[in-house]
C-alpha cells in the first residue's frame, strides 16, 4: 500500500516534471525542473534499495552535470530566443507522433516480454529465472554499497577503467573545445 | 557621452564584454567615485573614472571670499587631512605677501601636519585593508585615528574640519600639557604599528593580493603625473618636504622611504614607513619646540600685492599645490586654483587596473589613496 502511494506519487511527479523540462519557455526554468526531476528519480532509487546509486544520482547528476547545464545556459545569455528562427521544413507534430510510435513500440516489447515471461514461469513480471539472473554476484541486500564496490572492482574492472578513461578524454575534449586561446 | 561598450565586429566572436558601474554607490570606491569597468569575464579591459559627484566649486567659491575665510573652505577638500590643506594655503598666501612666520609656529605647523599624516594614513590603511578583506585592521586603525582627532580637538576644538591655521602663523598656542600628550601618543602609535604589521605585512594572503598588483615603473609614474606614495613606490625620490622644505622640515631629520617594484605592496610598505618617519618628525619637533610668538607680522587687512604664485606641500596623498593670482585691489583672490594630489593620482587608475581582475580594482583604488572631496573640490 505504502509502496503504491510512493510509486504513483513519484511517477506522476517525475513525468509531470519531465513534460515541464521540455515545455518550459526559459532554459533556466527547464534546468530547474530537470534538477527536481533528478532528485525525485533518486528518491525512486531509494525505494528500490539502491541507496548508493541514489546518492550518486544526486551528487553527479543534480550536483554536477546539471550545474554545468545551468552554467552554460547563463553563459550563452541568449539575447534572441532560439525559437525565433525555425526551419520551414520542420513540422512540430511529427516529432510528437514519432515519439508516440516509439512509446507504443516500447510498451509492446514490455508487454510481449511479460507475457512470454508468464508463459515460462508463473512469476508475474520478470522472473528471477530469466537468463539475466546468472550474471549477478549473490543476493542483494539493502546495505549494498560494499557489494557494489566488490562487483565494480572485480567483475567490471575493465569497463570501470574504460569509463575513467572516457571521463579523462571528455575532460580534455571539453577544455580544448571551450578554451578560447590554446 | 555614452559609456556603453562599442560592439567589436571582429570575425572571431568572443563572449560579451560586461560593462559594470562600480560606484557611485559602492562600498569600496571611497566616496562617490564612479568607475565604469569593461570586463571580459572577471578581467578588466578598460576603466573610465567618472567624477564630480561632490563638486562644490570650492575654487570658484574662493574667489568671492576674503583671504581668511578661504582657510575654512580648504578644510573641505581633503577632509581627512584638513590641517595639511590649511598649511598649504596659508603658506601660499604668506609667500605671496612675503610674511615671515615665527619659528614656534613653524614647528607647531610641522607637528600638526605630521599628526594629520598619521590620521590620514590610518584611514588609508583601514579602508585599504578592508577592501582586501581584512576587516579587523579597519577598526584598529580607526581606533588610533581617534587619538589623533582627540589631540586636534584639544588644540583647536574641532575633530574633522579644523580651520587650524592662519595666514602668518597659528590662531592659538597649544594648550598646556598638549606636547606631553603628543609624545605619549607617539609611543602608543609605535606599538600599534607593530600590531598592524603583524596582521598584514607577512600575511601570505595579503602578499598574494598586493605583490605584483598594479605595477608601474618610475618613468611611467612620472609620465602619468603621479605624486606622493604612489610615485615613491615606483622608486622616484620625490618628497617636497626634502626637495623644497617648508615649515620646519629643513631642521628635521627624516628619511624618505622608497619602493623598488612599484606594486601595491611597495606602496603599502612605504606608507607604513611614513608612519614611523612621521612619528620621528613629531618627536623632534615637539622636543625641540622653541619659545616665542605664534603669529607673524600680518596687516589687519590682508590684501596681497598684485601677482601670482604657486606653492606646493607634501600632503599625505602627495603634492598639494595652490596657485593663487591676486589683483592687488580686492580682498579676495582673482584666481584660486588647487592642484589636488588625489585628482592627479586618480589619473593613473585606468593604467593600473587594466589587465587586472575586478577584485584588484578595489585594492588599487585603495592603494592610490584618494579622497573624493579633494578630487572634485
Amino acid at each position: 500500500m505504502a509502496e503504491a502511494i510512493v510509486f504513483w506519487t513519484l511517477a506522476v511527479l517525475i513525468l509531470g516534471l519531465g513534460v515541464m523540462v521540455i515545455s518550459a519557455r526559459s532554459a533556466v526554468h527547464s534546468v530547474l525542473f530537470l534538477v527536481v526531476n533528478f532528485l525525485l528519480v533518486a528518491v525512486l532509487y531509494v525505494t528500490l534499495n539502491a541507496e548508493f546509486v541514489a546518492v550518486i544520482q544526486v551528487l553527479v547528476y543534480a550536483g554536477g552535470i546539471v550545474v554545468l547545464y545551468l552554467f552554460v545556459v547563463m553563459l550563452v545569455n541568449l539575447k534572441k530566443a532560439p525559437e525565433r528562427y525555425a526551419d520551414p521544413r520542420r513540422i512540430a507534430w511529427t516529432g510528437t507522433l514519432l515519439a508516440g510510435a516509439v512509446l507504443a513500440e516500447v510498451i509492446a516489447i514490455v508487454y510481449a516480454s511479460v507475457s512470454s515471461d508468464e508463459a515460462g514461469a508463473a512469476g508475474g513480471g520478470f522472473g528471477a529465472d530469466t537468463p539475466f539472473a546468472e550474471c549477478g554476484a549473490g543476493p542483494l541486500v539493502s546495505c549494498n554499497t560494499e557489494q557494489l564496490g566488490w562487483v565494480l572492482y572485480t567483475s567490471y574492472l575493465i569497463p570501470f577503467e574504460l569509463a575513467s578513461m572516457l571521463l579523462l578524454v571528455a575532460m580534455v575534449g571539453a577544455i580544448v573545445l571551450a578554451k578560447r586561446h590554446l | 557621452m555614452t559609456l556603453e561598450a562599442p560592439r567589436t565586429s571582429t570575425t572571431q566572436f568572443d563572449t560579451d564584454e560586461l560593462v559594470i558601474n562600480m560606484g557611485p554607490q559602492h562600498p569600496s570606491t571611497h566616496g562617490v567615485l564612479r568607475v565604469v569597468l569593461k570586463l571580459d569575464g572577471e578581467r578588466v579591459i578598460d576603466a573610465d573614472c567618472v567624477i564630480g559627484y561632490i563638486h562644490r566649486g570650492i575654487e570658484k567659491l574662493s574667489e568671492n571670499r576674503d583671504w581668511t575665510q578661504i582657510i575654512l573652505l580648504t578644510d573641505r577638500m581633503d577632509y581627512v587631512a584638513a590641517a595639511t590643506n590649511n598649511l598649504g594655503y596659508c603658506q601660499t598666501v604668506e609667500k605671496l605677501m612675503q610674511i615671515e612666520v615665527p619659528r614656534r609656529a613653524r614647528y607647531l605647523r610641522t607637528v600638526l601636519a605630521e599628526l594629520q599624516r598619521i590620521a590620514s594614513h590610518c584611514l588609508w590603511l583601514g579602508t585599504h585593508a578592508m577592501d582586501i578583506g581584512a576587516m579587523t585592521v579597519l577598526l584598529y586603525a580607526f581606533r588610533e585615528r581617534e587619538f589623533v582627532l582627540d589631540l586636534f580637538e584639544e588644540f583647536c576644538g574641532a575633530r574633522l574640519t579644523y580651520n587650524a591655521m592662519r595666514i602668518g602663523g597659528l590662531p592659538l598656542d597649544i594648550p598646556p600639557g598638549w606636547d606631553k600628550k603628543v609624545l605619549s601618543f607617539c609611543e602608543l602609535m609605535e606599538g600599534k604599528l607593530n600590531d598592524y604589521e603583524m596582521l598584514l605585512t607577512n600575511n601570505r594572503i595579503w602578499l598574494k593580493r598586493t605583490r605584483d598588483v598594479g605595477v608601474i615603473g618610475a618613468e611611467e609614474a612620472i609620465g602619468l603625473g603621479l605624486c606622493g606614495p604612489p610615485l615613491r613606490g615606483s622608486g622616484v625620490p620625490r618628497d617636497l618636504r626634502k626637495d623644497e622644505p617648508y615649515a620646519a622640515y629643513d631642521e628635521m631629520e627624516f628619511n624618505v622611504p622608497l619602493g623598488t617594484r612599484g606594486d601595491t605592496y611597495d606602496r603599502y610598505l612605504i606608507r607604513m614607513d611614513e608612519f614611523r618617519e612621521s612619528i620621528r618628525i613629531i618627536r623632534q619637533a615637539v622636543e625641540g619646540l622653541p619659545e616665542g610668538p605664534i603669529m607673524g607680522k600680518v596687516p589687519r587687512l590682508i590684501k596681497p600685492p598684485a601677482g601670482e604664485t604657486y606653492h606646493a606641500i607634501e600632503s599625505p596623498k602627495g603634492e598639494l599645490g595652490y596657485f593663487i593670482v591676486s589683483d592687488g585691489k580686492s580682498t579676495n583672490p582673482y584666481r584660486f586654483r588647487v592642484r589636488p594630489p588625489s585628482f592627479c593620482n586618480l589619473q593613473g587608475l585606468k593604467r593600473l587596473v587594466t589587465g587586472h581582475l575586478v577584485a584588484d580594482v578595489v585594492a588599487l583604488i585603495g592603494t592610490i589613496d584618494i579622497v573624493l572631496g579633494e578630487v572634485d573640490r
Partner: protein
Amino acid sequence: MLETVVVPLLKIAVLLNAVLVAVTFLVLMERKVIAWAQSRLGPMRVGPYGILQAIADPIKLILKEDITPAKADKYVFTLAPIMSLVPALVVFAVVPFGPDPLYYVSDINVGLLFIISVTSIGVYGIILGGWASNSKYPLLASLRASAQLISYEIAVTMTLVSVILTTGTLSLVGIVEAQREGGLWFAFVQPVALMLVFIGGLAETNRAPFDLPEAETELTGGFHTEYSGMRFSLFFLAEYANMIVISAIVVIMFFGGWLAPFPNVPALAFLGFLPPWVWFIGKIFLFLYVFIWIRATLPRYRYDQLMGLGWKVLIPIAIGNLVVTGILKVAF
C-alpha cells in the same frame, strides 16, 4: 506507528528548531567575537550584554519589506533562497549527536555520501539567486560561487574518501565508533585530511578568506545584493546552517563526534561525566569559533588565486593523501 512516524517527526521538529535557534545565536556569537577581536563591545543594547539581539535580528529581517526587483524572474527569485536553505537543513537528518538512536534522526549506511551530495545541491540557491536578480554584480558573484563550490567539493570529497578508507564505513555513527575502537581521533591519524576538509569547508560555506561570492567590498554584497527582508534572511540562515554542518562533519570525522578526548585512556574516563551530546555540541562550537576567528584575521583571496589554490594545491594533496592512505592500509 509511534516508532516509525511520530518519534522521527518529533525528532525532526526538535532538531530543526534547535538548528534555527542555534543559527540566530551563532550570528550573535559572530558579532560578539569579531567585536572583541576588534576591541569593540558588539551589540549591547537589546537585553543584558546584547543577548536578545539574537531575537531582535530575525524579527527585524522578517518585518522588513520584501522587495522583488522589477525585472527579476519572480519565481526563481523566490525559489532561490529556499533552495539554498533546504539542503543545509536536510543534512542534519544524518548527523548523530550521540551514540544512542535517540540522538539522531536516522543512521543511513551511506550517511557521508548523503551529506556530500545534499550539500552539493546548495549551490543552486546561489547560482539561481544571482541569475534571477537580473543584475550584474549578483550574476558575477553567482558565477564565482558556482565555480568555487564545485572546485572545492572535489577536494573535500576526495579527502573524505581517504577517511572512509581508514574506517571502512560510510555511516557517520560507524565512523565515530571506529574512532572509539581505535582509541584515537582521526585528527591524529589523518592530520592532512583534517586541514584539507577544514579549508575546503571554509570555501564551501563562502566564509573568509574565501568569501568571494559575497565580498561586499568588491561585489557590493554578492549574489544576494538584490535580496531583502525574509528572503535575504533565508540566505543568511543557510550560510550559518552550512557552517554548523561543516563543523559537525569535521568533528564527526576527525574529532571523535560525541566522544570525550582519548576515550580509551582510563585516567581520562572522568571526562564521561558530561553527556555525549554536550561534547559534540561543545566541539562544534569550538570550530565555529575558529571560523569566526579566521574571518576576523585574514584578508580575502582573489578569484584566480582561490581557484589556483583549489585545483593546484588542495586537489593534488588530496589525491596524494588518498594514495598514501591506501598504501598504508594495504601495508598494515
